[in-house]
Each structure stands twice: as C-alpha cells, then as structure tokens.
C-alpha cells in the first residue's frame, strides 16, 4: 500500500485551461485548499507525519516525541510566567508569591515546575531507549552526539531556572553549584566567574535569567531542529528484536548494493 505523501490533493477534479502555466483552480471554497495552493504545506507536513516506521517498535519509541511535547509545554508556560516574574533580587520572591496567589498563573507555575522534572526523566529514558536498541550506530552517530548536547542544555536549563525563585534553597544551591564548577582544573575559576558575573553573587540572578530565557533556549531550538532533521532524513532504526537487513559498510556495502 502506498503511503500518502500529502494531506490531500487539491488538484483532484481540477480542469486545466489550455495555456495555463501552473495549476489553476479558480477560488477554492475551503481555507485548507487556499493555504495548500499558496504554500504547498501538505508536501512538508506529509513527509513529517507519514514516515515509514520499522515493524516491531514498541511504546518506548514514543519517548522522543514526548520530550518534544514537554519542551513545547515548558516554553509556553515559561513565556506566561515571564510576564509576571520580576528578575531582580529585590522583586523576585514577591513576584512569585503574586504568581501563586492567582489560580491560573499558579497552575501554570506548577506545570512549569513539574514539567522540568518530567523533561529530565523523559530525556533520560529516551537516551536509554536509543542506547539499548543500538540506534546510535551508523548512520546515526551524529544524531546521538546532538542528543547529548540537548541533554547538557536541558540540565543547564534546570540549573539556571532553579535560582530564579530566589529563596534560601535556590540561592545556596546556586552558590554551592557554581563553586563546585569552580573547582574544575584550569577553566573552572573562569567558568565560575562567568556564571557568577563577578566575585560576588549580586549580578547572578540577572545573568541566570538571561541564560535561562534566551541563551539556552536558542541553543535548544537549534539542536532540536538538527536532531529532527537527521531523524527524518535517516529514519527510525529497526529494533534489534526484529530480523532486518544488516547494514553493510565499505566494500561489503558496494558488493551488496551493486
């Protein structure tokens, strides 16, 4: 059975006038047709959604999409929280108390709080799934490396976001965390000074806010896009419990595909 490559075909039943340069359809009656005519979006979304999946995958293979969903959730709740949070040492804690008082923002903050832990857990399980199904091997090595970068950036999001509450636990956890980083050889004190923003912790909150809101999310979006591009280009790996065609490299590959 041929997989559908587009969502629908707007040219079905179309009458082409003679001499037309491209597909001519008059005025389509529905908005989806209208957008499809002008953007060709169906030919982009189709390959994303109607990808061939190897036989024998189980529910653990959904963890990657789960991680993406949680990331989108964190982004949206984070943007809402940023409308009410005050990123200065004098106003941070009071602004969070204000967020807690309103029922809607309180629920948003709770989603962001628990979503952070869910993100770490889901990413760790996704990494385990990729490892135990041998899906990091050729030609997916670069995808594994990009995934590792995403893991480190996610841990960075957790670390920088933790300080923003600016209560005793957050402040001292950050003091100790930055000082632990400062004990690394050679670059340790430099990285600690960069994160701290100087010899004392006066400018650390503003710095961590900028890193949490702008720097790391920019990196995350970049690397998630690369991760997705590589995934869609190469495809899902056949699980090891299914008998599939072995992948050959080098001379054996030339011989096999000759």
């Amino acid at each position, binding site marked *: 059975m041929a997989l559908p490559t587009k969502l629908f075909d707007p040219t079905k039943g179309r009458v082409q006038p003679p001499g037309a340069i491209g597909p001519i359809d008059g005025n389509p009656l529905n908005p989806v047709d209208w957008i499809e005519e002008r953007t060709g979006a169906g030919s982009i979304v189709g390959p994303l959604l109607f990808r061939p999946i190897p036989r024998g995958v189980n529910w653990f293979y959904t963890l990657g999409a789960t991680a993406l969903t949680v990331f989108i959730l964190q982004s949206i709740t984070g943007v809402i929280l940023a409308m009410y949070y005050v990123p200065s*040492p*004098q106003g941070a804690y009071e602004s969070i108390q204000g967020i807690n008082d309103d029922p809607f923002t309180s629920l948003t903050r709770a989603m962001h709080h628990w979503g952070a832990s869910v993100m770490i857990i889901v990413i760790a399980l996704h990494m385990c799934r990729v490892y135990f199904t041998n899906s990091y091997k050729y030609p997916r090595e670069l995808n594994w490396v990009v995934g590792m970068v995403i893991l480190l950036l996610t841990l960075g999001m957790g670390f920088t976001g933790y300080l923003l509450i*600016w209560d*005793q636990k957050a*402040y*001292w956890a950050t*003091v*100790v965390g*930055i*000082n*632990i980083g*400062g*004990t690394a*050889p*050679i670059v*340790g*004190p*430099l990285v*600690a*000074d*960069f994160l*701290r*923003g*100087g*010899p*004392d*912790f*006066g*400018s*650390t*909150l503003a710095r961590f806010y900028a890193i949490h809101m702008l720097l790391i999310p920019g990196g995350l979006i970049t690397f998630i896009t690369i991760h997705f591009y590589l995934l869609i280009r190469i495809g899902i790996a056949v699980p090891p419990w299914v008998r599939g065609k072995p992948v050959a490299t080098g001379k054996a590959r030339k011989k096999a595909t000759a």
Partner: protein
Amino acid sequence: MALSSREKFLTGVVVGAGGLIGLGIAVPVVGAAFAPPFKKREGDFVKVFHAPDKQDQAPDFATLKPFLMNEVVIGDAPAAAVELPGQSGEVGARALYVSVRNLNADYKKPVLKGNTFPSKDGMPDNFVVEGISNTCMHLGCPVSGGGGGFACPCHGGNYDGLGRRVGGPPVRPLDRYDMLDGKWVAGGEPGTLYAGQLHSVDNDFNRYGLTPPGVPLTGFLAPIYPAKG
C-alpha cells in the same frame, strides 16, 4: 565550473568584509558577557567601627575592646561579627569577623600598614586587627563560630581562630578583608575602622587575589589552577 579570478577576488572581499562585521558584533557582545568578572574592583571600603568621641585618634585596643567583646569569642581572642550587606539583598549578606591578634605571636609576615595599632591595655606587642570572611572555603556556605574557631554546618569544615583549616573538606584558610584605620583610606575618617578589599590567603597568610572556594592555592593541586587572582 571553475571560478574566474574576478569571482574569486569578490568572494574573498565579501567573506573578509563579513568577517570584519562579525568581529565588530562579536567582540563587544562576548566582552560584555565575560568582562565584568575580570574587572578589577578598586577597594570599596566599608565602615566597620566608628568611635564618635575619639574623632582624631587612631583606634587603639581600648576603643576596640568593648566593641569586640560584646559579640563572639573566637578561640581565645575577642571578636565581633559585622554584617556586610551584599549586592544581592538580604540573602547575600556576608558576615565579617573582626578579631584582634598579637602581631609577633601569630603572624610571621609583615602586615599592611594601617593594620597595626600600638599596644595598650595589657597587650604586650603591637596587635593586628583582622577581618575574616565567613564564606567556607569548601563550597561557599556561611561559617559561624564553633569549636574554638569557626565551623561550617554544610559539610563539617573546621577552622581555628585565625581561619586556618583544621578539619573537614575546605582546601585553604578563610578569606580576609583588609582592615584599615580611617586615616589610610581615601576619604576616610580617622578613628574609624574600615573593611577593605576581600582577598584570599594561604596557610602562611600570603596574599592572593580573590579565588573561588574549593580552589587550593598551595599544595600539589595548585598548579592546575593557573588563573587565580
């Protein structure tokens, strides 16, 4: 199709100009991110103790003594805890322990001019006022008095009355503030004790630049931390 020499030249010019523009953007941006930690901060001096009825005299032990005796006793010397407000508000306030030490018995190296005061009131030699920071040199928790010196509640670091490590995971003595008499401070009032620049010390009280906690200044691990103060 091979590029002609004209195309190669123009490509080089465009790439070169683009590189210059990129530098023009990157250098200020990266500098802003990384420069503040490296800027040398000239001593902001904080007034620690002022004797209002002794305006023109240097603080001597008699004037300091009542101030010191009413707070804490560290080891066998009277000391006082002074709160220095931090820039991060109340949560970042740091305490400074002011104590008085006998110059010849405790210090083998010369101390800062302005730190030494003439002896009076039963102290046999010139004494030194020192300011000890309360940041633990393991991972930065605040230390308080205990065990004849200082003790850190986080991981059990112990220091003696002079701030030198006697137990636990800290790697070097507690940081010090320059304690100066007002007449040695630009714009300072005589008869007032000021706390100056925070700096790190090793076990012989040699002065180093301010270094993060957990970084050893002497010993066999010190060479892997080249960029300290």
